[in-house]
């Protein structure tokens, strides 16, 4: 199966492990990804807070770029925020001719156009469980994740809101596709009641106490349920739960240690792939103790501090840690 692929800004860098692992499992799952030519940022949740038409035009440029690829009508995004933005723009353009007209007037300034509904926007999890299917995945499992207690975590934007005719591919309140997938991989899946709750999005930047509280609830929940790790499918969720876990602990004076990995990494592990080749080791909350339970060896992460290239722009200085 061939798909247009929209990585999104996060997967370029902070969530590169997600990108790397997705690419690693594509071949064994029989999927071919064609990256959208010269894609741009989807605007996250920020652009639409300032400008309505411009934010949709920004997204629509990606749809127009993706539609240039004629060999497939399916556009896949691994990032939930990108996925929702692309899907929403696609659906609203199809529903509202006046919005579509305005967006196309804007696109025309860049020599592009797009008709709402031309593409089908889908999340990576959706295509893996529904197009490839659980059976085909099960057939490839060589190293089942036996004995690993995982908390499946969907976050918000993959299942909400219901948009267009078909709504969402999983239940908006209590999704189960990731649960089933992880079971197929051999893991012990806990019935995680907070699986579709919010990680806080950008709240760490707006109001620390609010953002940290949202992170705490999830980490505490997974810990209460004795999970070894949280499995997620969204770079924002991973960033909040993993990278901000230390700051959250400091804020509440707690000592939680809950590693957070991507579902693509888990598929790769169950397929017997090498941990390093799946980007494991780049998480800030060390996943090694958890993965040792299933006999996965993870090399000590290489500390890479790349020097900025010559053309680099001047950087605001980062204060040293005490």
């Amino acid at each position, binding site marked *: 199966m061939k798909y247009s692929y929209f990585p999104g800004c996060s997967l370029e860098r902070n969530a590169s492990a997600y990108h790397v692992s997705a690419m690693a499992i594509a071949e064994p799952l029989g999927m071919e990804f064609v990256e959208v030519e010269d894609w741009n940022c989807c605007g996250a949740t920020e652009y639409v807070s*300032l400008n309505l038409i411009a934010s949709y*035009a*920004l997204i629509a440029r990606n749809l127009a770029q993706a539609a240039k690829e004629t060999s497939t009508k399916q556009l896949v995004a691994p990032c939930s925020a990108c996925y929702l933005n692309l899907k929403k723009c696609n659906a*609203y353009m199809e529903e509202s001719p006046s919005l579509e007209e305005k967006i196309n007037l*804007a696109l025309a300034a860049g020599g592009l156009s797009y008709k709402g509904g031309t593409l089908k926007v889908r999340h990576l999890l959706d295509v893996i469980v529904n197009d490839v299917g659980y059976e085909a995945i099960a057939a490839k499992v060589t190293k089942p994740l036996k004995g690993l207690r995982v908390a499946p975590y969907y976050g*918000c934007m993959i299942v*909400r809101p219901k948009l267009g005719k078909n709504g969402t591919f999983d239940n908006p309140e209590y999704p189960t596709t990731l649960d089933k997938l992880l079971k197929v991989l051999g893991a012990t899946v806990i019935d995680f009641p907070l699986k579709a709750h919010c990680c806080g999005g950008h709240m760490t930047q707006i109001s620390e106490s609010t953002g940290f509280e949202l992170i705490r609830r999830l980490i505490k929940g997974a810990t209460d349920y004795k999970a070894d790790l949280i499995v997620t499918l969204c770079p924002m969720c991973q960033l909040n739960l993993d990278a901000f876990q230390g*700051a959250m602990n400091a804020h509440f004076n707690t000592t939680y240690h809950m590693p957070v990995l991507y579902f693509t990494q888990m598929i790769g592990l169950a397929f017997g792939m090498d941990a390093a080749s799946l980007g494991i080791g780049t998480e800030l909350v060390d996943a090694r103790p958890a993965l040792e339970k299933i006999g996965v060896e993870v090399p000590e992460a290489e500390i890479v501090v790349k020097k900025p290239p010559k053309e680099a722009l001047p*950087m605001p200085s980062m204060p040293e*840690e005490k």
Partner: protein
Amino acid sequence: MSSASVSPTPEGIRQKTFLEEVIENTPGDCHLLNCIQCGTCGGSCPSGQDMDHTPRAIFAMISAGLKKEVLKSNTPWYCVSCYYCTVRCPQSVHITDIMYTLKRLAVKEKVYDDSKAPDFSKTFVDWVENYGRAFELGLMSMHLIKHNPFGVFKMAGMGMGMISKGRMAFTPTRIKGIDSLKAILNKAKELEAMA
């Protein structure tokens, strides 16, 4: 169609109400007129406890015409876009979309409170408009320095971790078609200003 009941007001007879303004600025039929004040949104909201007013209260204030109070409220800026309220709303009110509308109106009217959120969005958008892609390091550090110079220390550990794991770029990526993108966005803003 509920939009029918906010049919255009004949010029000079009366001013558009705030309620009508909010509805007009939200794409699609947002069903705001159908709100029955049940509080499902306020009950569902993950950050509801930190909001000045729950979304439900905001809707009551909108229909009461308390424009200034609504736009000054931190409520829309504390919305985390989780869409729980939207899918649970028994009246199909597009609550998250309305929160975005309130943010835009607050920015336009320049009456939002001292929330850092609008600035965060602006900083983010600046990078996107000039490069075509988001730039986390630049965004986070600039935002921190501007709004929470002391917080920089708190977050520094995290930032160093990210850098050391190779998860943060020092330079933003610029897309090839940045000129065409700029043209698109300028045109879009022009259209928006006309509306």
